[in-house]
Structure formats: structure tokens, C-alpha cells
């Protein structure tokens, strides 16, 4: 006969055994890299096994604030984040509403079509859009040519570089924003909408006075996801602009420091600082948006 205590202990033991692979995985692939990066950020370690690894205090952090182009990259990331977050959230909301108003059969088709870019790898997206943007022979150039409009050099002209990547980024990610809104809209009790319709509310009235406030929590999630994604953005910039200094967002700058100059210690310090900045900005945005929800 087992006592309750023994049975609980046995159950706990089995619980730990089952959890062991996951715990090992999290420790090896999440905690260890974070702690190792933190340690690296206080050393002068570059990258190779023969490179020295001495403790140098806060020198890497000092370097970020005095000599690096970290904040220049951060400013570019913030500009990109701000614009994409606004466009993506607003566009995603309206697209979700359009989908919401469709008949179920059409919903299925459009949901897949509009979400498709989101599952495409960034490499595929960049190759595709490089063809679309290609000066002289690209799809956009040809289309605009039909109307006798000279297309700009989308990826080459300094004035068009940012708008071009914002278009690509929005095209790729707006599907996810739309789906999240769509799920939230479907969760709204149909009776509320019907009551409003009986009371004579217009479609716009329903949209802005019922759907928008009820899905405000979803807006918070979408804004936070877009914001964090925007600040961490790296792949599309890397694939579309390679080493173009004018488009070196903070993520790309960190990558270049790690894998261009091979200075891991500075790259680690910058990565940790960026993580801290993203956390602060996310908390701030979350706080701000939660006020809107209370209103």
C-alpha cells in the first residue's frame, strides 16, 4: 500500500522525468546562449578559439554609446517599425473585416490567399520582389510603362528604398495580422451585431463602435507583434539590400559586427541592449494601448 505522500512523490518524479528533455532543451538552447552572451558582452572575445577572452568591464557598452553606429541603425529600425506597424495594423483590420463580411465559402479561399505570403520564407519573398522591383525589366516597371510612367529605381534610389521594403514587409506580414483580427471578430457574439443592425446601425457604425472596441485587445497583440517584429527585422533588409550602409537596421548592424568584423563581444552587448530596448518599448506600448481598452 502506498501512502498519498509516496504516490505524489512518485508522480512528481515521473513528471520530472517527462519534463527532462524539454528542460535540457530550454537550458541548452535558451538560457545558456543568453547567459553566455551576457558574459561575452563583458569580455574582449572576438570569435576564434585562439582569440583572448579577458574581462574588460563595461567597455563594450561604452563603445556602443560613443563610437558605434548602433543608434543610427536603431533610428532606422524605429522609423521602419513605426510605419509598418501602423500600416499593417490598419490594413490587417480592414482586410479582416472584409473577410468577416464574406460568405463562408469565399472566406475559405481568401483566407488562404491572403495568408499565403506569411508562410513564404523571406528568401523566396526577396527573390520574388527583386524581380518585381527590377529596374527596366521588372513587373512594376513594365506595368507602369503601360501608362507611360517612369518607374523609380525601387531598391536603388535612396528616396524609394524605405517605401519599397515597407511594401514587401506589409505584403508578407499583413496576412497574420488579418487572421488574428478575423479570429477575434468571429468570437464576437452575433446577437450584438444583429441587435445593432435592428437598431439601425450602419456598417461603419458597427465597425467602429462595436467591432473595433471589442477587438481592442487583439489590436494590442497585433501592435506588439508588429512592433517587436519590426525592431528585430533583419532578413528582408539583408536579402534586399545586402551591405547597403543606408539600409543597415540595428539587427543587420549587430549581424555585421558578429559575422563581418567577427567581434562577438560587441555584438553580444548590442544584442542585449536591443533586447532591453524592445522590452521597454513593448511594455510602454502595452501600457498605452491598455489605457485605450479601459476607455
Amino acid at each position: 500500500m502506498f501512502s498519498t505522500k509516496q504516490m505524489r512523490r512518485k508522480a512528481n518524479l515521473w513528471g520530472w522525468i517527462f519534463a527532462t528533455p524539454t528542460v535540457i532543451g530550454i537550458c541548452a538552447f535558451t538560457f545558456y546562449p543568453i547567459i553566455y552572451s551576457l558574459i561575452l558582452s563583458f569580455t574582449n572575445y572576438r570569435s576564434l578559439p585562439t582569440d583572448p577572452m579577458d574581462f574588460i568591464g563595461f567597455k563594450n557598452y561604452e563603445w556602443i554609446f560613443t563610437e558605434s553606429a548602433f543608434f543610427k541603425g536603431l533610428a532606422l529600425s524605429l522609423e521602419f517599425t513605426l510605419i509598418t506597424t501602423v500600416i499593417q495594423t490598419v490594413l490587417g483590420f480592414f482586410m479582416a473585416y472584409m473577410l468577416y463580411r464574406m460568405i463562408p465559402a469565399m472566406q475559405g479561399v481568401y483566407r488562404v490567399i491572403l495568408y499565403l505570403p506569411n508562410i513564404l520564407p523571406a528568401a523566396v519573398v526577396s527573390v520574388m520582389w527583386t524581380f518585381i522591383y527590377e529596374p527596366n525589366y521588372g513587373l512594376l516597371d513594365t506595368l507602369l510603362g503601360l501608362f507611360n510612367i517612369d518607374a523609380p529605381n525601387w531598391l536603388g534610389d535612396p528616396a524609394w528604398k524605405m517605401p519599397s521594403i515597407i511594401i514587401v514587409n506589409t505584403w508578407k506580414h499583413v496576412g497574420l495580422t488579418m487572421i488574428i483580427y478575423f479570429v477575434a471578430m468571429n468570437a464576437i457574439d452575433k446577437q450584438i451585431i444583429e441587435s445593432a443592425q435592428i437598431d439601425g446601425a450602419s456598417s461603419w457604425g458597427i465597425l467602429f463602435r462595436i467591432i473595433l472596441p471589442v477587438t481592442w485587445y487583439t489590436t494590442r497583440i497585433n501592435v506588439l507583434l508588429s512592433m517587436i517584429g519590426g525592431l528585430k527585422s533583419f532578413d528582408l533588409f539583408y536579402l534586399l539590400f545586402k551591405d547597403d550602409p543606408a539600409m543597415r537596421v540595428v539587427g543587420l548592424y549587430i549581424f555585421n559586427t558578429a559575422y563581418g568584423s567577427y567581434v562577438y563581444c560587441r555584438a553580444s552587448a548590442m544584442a542585449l541592449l536591443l533586447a532591453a530596448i524592445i522590452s521597454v518599448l513593448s511594455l510602454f506600448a502595452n501600457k498605452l494601448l491598455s489605457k485605450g481598452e479601459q476607455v
Partner: protein
Amino acid sequence: MKNSFLKKLTAAVLAACSIFAVSACGGGTGTRGNKVKLEFVHYWPEHATLLKEICREYSAENPDVTITPTNVPYSNIESQLMNMLRSGGLPDVFCYWSNACYNLAKDGYLANIDEFAEQEKANYVNDAFSLEDGKINGHYYAAPFRASGYVIVYNKKMFQDYNWKVPETLEELETLCYDVIEDSAGELTPLAVYGTSSGTMMQIKSTFDAYVNILSGLVKDPAYYCNRQDASKESGLQQLYADSLVKFKKWYDAGFFTLDPQTRDNAQKEFTNGKTPMILFNNNNLDVLQATIGEDFRIGAISFPAPEIVAELNLNTFTNGTFDSIFIAKSSRHYDVALDFMKYLMSDEVQQKWAQRTRSVSLKKNVVYDNDEQRNMATLLSQLGAYPQKADFTMSTDASSGNYTLVNNYLTNASNYTALEVVQKGFENTVKSVTDKILNPGNLQMIEITTTLDYSENRYTWLK
């Protein structure tokens, strides 16, 4: 009871899997039985089949050796090698560039091949410039496999139709560019270049700078070799670099080249569609270009021509480029076998086969080409490596991209700096990198130029 057993079994399997998953990271070269397995990494995916064939033939002659060739895209080779280094060591034999091997050699990751170099020296073309390019601190590390340089490829038919003369000097190239614009009423861009800020357009400027270095005599200064020459006391030299930048801008403003084509493909299309009669191109990509053009589209090639004065003074000319070379890792457990395989790759037989199949330019004297194009290319690239330079410091990406941005902004009037200020700022960036204790921990400093440089005006009239 059965459930409980299954749970235990599942937990045990998962735990074992996680341990095996981690322990599976590794592997590599070794000896299985009496068979030696060599790892060979190259950056020629387009010639992977041929390399496999060469490796198979080597293994057929040496049944105890198996070679595993792995191809890595050209643009990723550096990061891949660094990753390999961090995770257990470099491959036994690998391809890399002679002019980029300094740090690997200095840090002791490369095996020296002095014996091979001394034996083979006489079999290399052009006073074995190419072998010398892989010589670090008195030891040889690189076996030059093929030349990789930039040449100007031109459209023969357009030249014939417009009655343009193929330029032999820089002055003639400049005149030709003006003629191209005038004869086509501005429809044609004389020279197609590609890449963004650090693309082939920068090679025009670096060629101008190279001739400043040659004509001033800087190339003979001991500091030039390690690229840490301190130009802060040489106002004359700074002014010459500024003049070179002004000339570069003059070419850009005149429309000799544009910054529009972003990729090599775009520039290539401009050329093949007849929108530009010349393109600055790597000799090893000529087969790709050849494959995209029709039979009636005939191309010729010239090296970027030198100013007239260079020939008058009987100096060597300059060609942008380097050597694709073969290296052996010091960590290789089979140095003798790796060396033997390297000798096989460098043998006349393999070099001949490689040159014939890939249309590359070999650096071995005994290789014979069966067509005029390759023979011409070998002549064009004969001065590659004539002025070897081995930067013994790491330039930060901030500094290098900062310098490109400075030039780019100057070119496009996006900054208010004068040419001299751009040169000085670029110089400051280099100094900052050299003296950065983390990037260059060996307490490196700039080295004073001890050679008396020649600033005679008649040497630089081509810059005006």
C-alpha cells in the same frame, strides 16, 4: 500497469534522444580502417561535377584515400570557414583567396607549404607573383589555383558599327567613353558596373588610387605591404588621392557609369541588350556571360588600361583581383595526404583539364589554351598580384562601410565634404580600426612612410 511501463519507456527514449541529438553534433575527417578520409571545401558550385570527377580520379589512383568535396557558395565561404574553425577545425583542404589569408596564417590555422612552393616556383607564370601573394612572414601558405581578376568586356559588333577603337591607355578609355555618349546621343552608358556602394564601380576608383601608389613609389615602401602606411604627414599623397576621387566623380557626372544596376544580372542584361558597350566583369564569370548571348554577339576583353605614363616609365600595370588558392589546415590529421592531394590539384594534368573545362586562367606555365579568348585573358591577367598587399589588421565594418558611404555621398552630392576631406575622413576611419584594441589586439599602429615619394607633376597629368 501497461500504461505506466509505456510512460517510462517514452521518457527513457526521449531522454536518450536528447542526449544523442547533442552528441551527434560533430563528425568530420578521420581514418576508417586503413582508409584516409579527406574533407575538401571549395566555392565553385558551378564546377562541382568537375571537382567531384577530379576527386574520384585521385581516389582511383590512391585507393586508400577518399575525398569528400563540399561546395559552399562563394559569398559564404568566409563565414563557413569561420564556423568550421569554431566548431572543430578547418577542413583538411580548402579553397580561399590568397590575399585574404593573413589572419588565418598569423593565428596558426594554416599549414605552411614552403617545400611545395620552392619546388614549384619555376613552374608558375609571371615570376610566380601568385605564389608570393600567399607568403606570410616568410612562409608560403597558398597554392594559387586560378586567376580571378576584373577585366573590361566589350561588345565587338558595337565597336565595329560605331567605329570605336579598343582603348590601350586610360586616356584613350576616357576619350572613348565621351565618344560613346556623343555618338549615341546620350542613349548609351559606356561602362556597366554592378553592386551597391562596394560594387565594381569602386574598382574604378581603386584602380586610380593604385596608379597613384605605383607612380608615387608608395608600392615600394615597406609599410605598403601591410596596408598600414601612415599618410598623415604626406599631404602630397592625400592631395593625389583627392584628385583621384575628383576624377572618379568626373566620370560619374559625365555618365560613364551609373549606380542603377544593383545586381550583376542587371548589369549583364544592360550589356547583352546593347544598352552599354562595355562591362567591368570577373574573368571567371565570362562563361556565364557567354551562355546568355547569341552566336552573333561577339565579345572582346581588355584589362582596365593604365595611364600612358606607366608604359613610358616601364612600370608594371595594375589589375584588380586575386588568386583562388588551395590551402591545407594545420589541424589536418593527414597533412601528407592533404599535401599530396594539393599537389595533384596543382599538377599540369589537372590544371589543363580545369582550364579546358571551365575556361579559367591557370597560373601554371605548361597549361596550353586551345582558343584565343583564353590566351588573351591569360595575357590580360599577367599583372595580377604584381603589387601584393597583405592587410595585417581587421578593418571594422563601421570603417569600411563608412568609407564607402563617404565616397558614395561625395559622388551623388549628398554630402558637403570636399574630396580632400573625404580622403582625410577615410584615413581617420582606417586609423581608428587599426588602433582598436579589440579588433586588433596586437597594439598595432600606423607605420610611417620612409620612402621618398615622387610628386612630379608630369606623372599625374592623367588625373587632371
